[in-house]
């Protein structure tokens, strides 16, 4: 069983493809509505509020677009890994460490170099740190075949704690009572898109997702990764340097996830507080599955998830439905996706015989 083998189903027409995506969403929203009813809440009121808050109001829409940036970059990183058959589940650690390093570097260099150079260096450093944090799992997988689900999860727990240690012991701003890094002034952060509150990291993220999609489907390197994902033994027989490719795809995947952390910190927060962990991995891993590792579909799903996140955050205060209801929806989506896909295969098998 490999991640890459899932992506092979792209042959049966656009209508079928859309219905395979829309059906799970509708089923999940419907089942979610039943749960809300059981809890004594008004499902239509809730969905209406989320939609209104996150997509129909200009300020909400900008918030939704801003939220898309880290999710898209993380998803781009996961597509590379999953298509190559590598289960990089350590995204949260890679994200946080990169964010902390960027948050430490940017204020320190500010003033000595032009602002745009400082931002570029900080972003690159974050990418590098993310990639480095995947090196041990990558080498263990490449040399000894050690299961990367375990090693990346372990490195993620380690990275989350290490990020806190760095904030508290190395990069702490002496001027604040709560441990956090020195804050980057608002006008020194990633430039905003003209006339909006959306930072330019969103453009970077869109380019990354589309670039990854293009690389995986249109280049020799991408093809090698797909072969690796579909069948490791076959890749070895075909003369692919499996060990080198494993390390490379790990580094690319974790580097993009690191970039997600850096843009979120440099674009939105300007600082990292101790114990800050948005845990985006819990949402983005399912999201990438739902999109079947397809870059275009990822953009659509990320918009959907970002809107849900932004809307549910204020719904928690206004409608009295906790924000974690989103997790229930995500799980339902995954379950219905799997069921719909299974039924689809079963139907095709019936037709074939």
């Amino acid at each position, binding site marked *: *069983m490999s991640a890459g083998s*899932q992506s092979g189903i792209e042959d049966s027409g656009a209508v079928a493809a859309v219905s395979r995506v829309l059906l799970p969403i509708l089923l999940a929203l419907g089942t979610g509505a039943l*749960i809300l009813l059981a*809890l*004594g809440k008004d499902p239509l009121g809730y969905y209406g509020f989320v939609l209104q808050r996150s997509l129909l109001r200009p300020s909400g829409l900008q918030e939704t677009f801003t939220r898309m940036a880290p999710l898209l970059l993380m998803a781009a990183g996961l597509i590379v890994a999953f298509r190559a058959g590598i*289960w990089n589940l350590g995204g949260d650690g890679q994200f946080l460490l990169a964010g902390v390093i960027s948050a430490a570097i940017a204020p320190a260099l500010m003033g000595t170099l032009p602002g745009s150079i400082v931002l570029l260096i900080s972003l690159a450093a974050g990418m590098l740190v993310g990639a480095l944090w995947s090196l*041990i799992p990558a080498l*263990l997988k490449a040399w*000894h*075949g*050690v*299961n990367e*689900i*375990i*090693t990346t*999860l*372990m*490195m993620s*727990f*380690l990275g989350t*704690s*290490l990020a*806190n*240690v760095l904030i*508290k*012991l190395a990069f702490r701003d002496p001027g604040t009572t709560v441990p956090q890094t020195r804050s980057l002034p608002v006008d020194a952060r990633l430039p905003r898109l003209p006339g909006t509150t959306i930072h330019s990291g969103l453009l970077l993220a869109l380019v990354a997702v589309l670039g990854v999609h293009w690389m995986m489907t249109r280049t020799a390197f991408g093809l090698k990764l797909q072969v690796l994902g579909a069948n490791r033994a076959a890749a070895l027989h075909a003369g692919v340097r499996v060990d080198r490719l494993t390390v490379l795809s790990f580094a690319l995947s974790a580097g993009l996830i690191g970039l997600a952390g850096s843009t979120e910190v440099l674009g939105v927060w300007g600082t990292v507080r101790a114990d800050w962990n948005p845990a985006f991995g*819990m949402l983005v*891993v*399912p999201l990438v*599955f739902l999109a079947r590792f397809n870059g275009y579909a990822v953009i659509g799903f990320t918009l959907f998830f970002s809107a849900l996140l932004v809307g549910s955050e204020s719904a928690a205060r206004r409608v009295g*439905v*906790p924000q*974690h*209801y*989103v*997790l*229930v*929806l*995500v*799980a*339902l989506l*995954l*379950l219905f*996706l*799997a*069921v719909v*896909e*299974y039924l689809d295969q079963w139907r095709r098998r019936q037709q074939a015989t």
Partner: protein
Amino acid sequence: MQALLTEPFLVSLIFGAVTAGVPLLLAGLGEQMSEKAGVLNIGIEGMMLLGAYTGFLACYRSGSFWLGFAAGGIGGMAAASIPLLLCIRRGMNQIVIGIAVTVGVNGLTSLLHYVQLSREYPRLPAAPGWAIPWLSRVPVLGKGLFVHNALVYLAVLLVPLLGWLYRSTYLGLSLTAAGDHPAALDAAGVDVQRTRSIALLATGFLAGVGGAYIANVGAGLFVPFMTGGAGFIGIVLAMLARGRPLWVLAGAALFGASLSMTTALQVAGINVPTDVVQMLPFALVMMVLIFFGRNDVLPRALGVPYERGER
């Protein structure tokens, strides 16, 4: 340093290690059984959390800790029934469904907590302890190891029991065969899917009881996300133990000790950031994997669905 060697400090350190280690032991033993049978059970974190919720609620409503543990086991089995139906019976992707179970239970228990418990935050009384005669009177070790809730001793007894099950019973050998060579097991006339289902339900039960222990004995209350990665540590323990229950016990003791060290150091007023101590168990696992990690420790058909007559 002298503060570290006082009797109260050592007792609380050892006692805490057992309290933190027992859920890991149960999760590790459960996951080991799933993996032996060829099911990579990523959803175990969700099974523990659902067990923590149902276990807490049953214990709080009935006042009985045993009913609480039983309800926790049932909750875990309920969560396990999803991958049972979708992965074992229908051959769907075990990692996708496993993540769905964990994410879904996290969301669902948060919702239920909000609706049922968030107004009064009920707490349980301290769990009854059972002092083992003679042994509990040994200095330091006695108060640390031998005055726990009776479930702790049962969990430890499970270790030799499972070792015997895997070595010398028909069911145990069938489990191993279901993970290593399901087609051979099928040829021998044993139902592979049924064998794997039994393993998964047992895993759900053990994980659920472990979750109930975290809520009822460890914390005395239920809060969202409270299992905090215990299930994932269970997966690690199972992988490192290479099929041997005794190694799961050793690993759970080690992890329990380093988790307990975090709180014990704080109590003793030692000024080390807790984050440094929290890194210890995970750093240890990585070291072990770097030096001893090899390919041949997992069942060959791990994660591969089995369908009769497919080849």
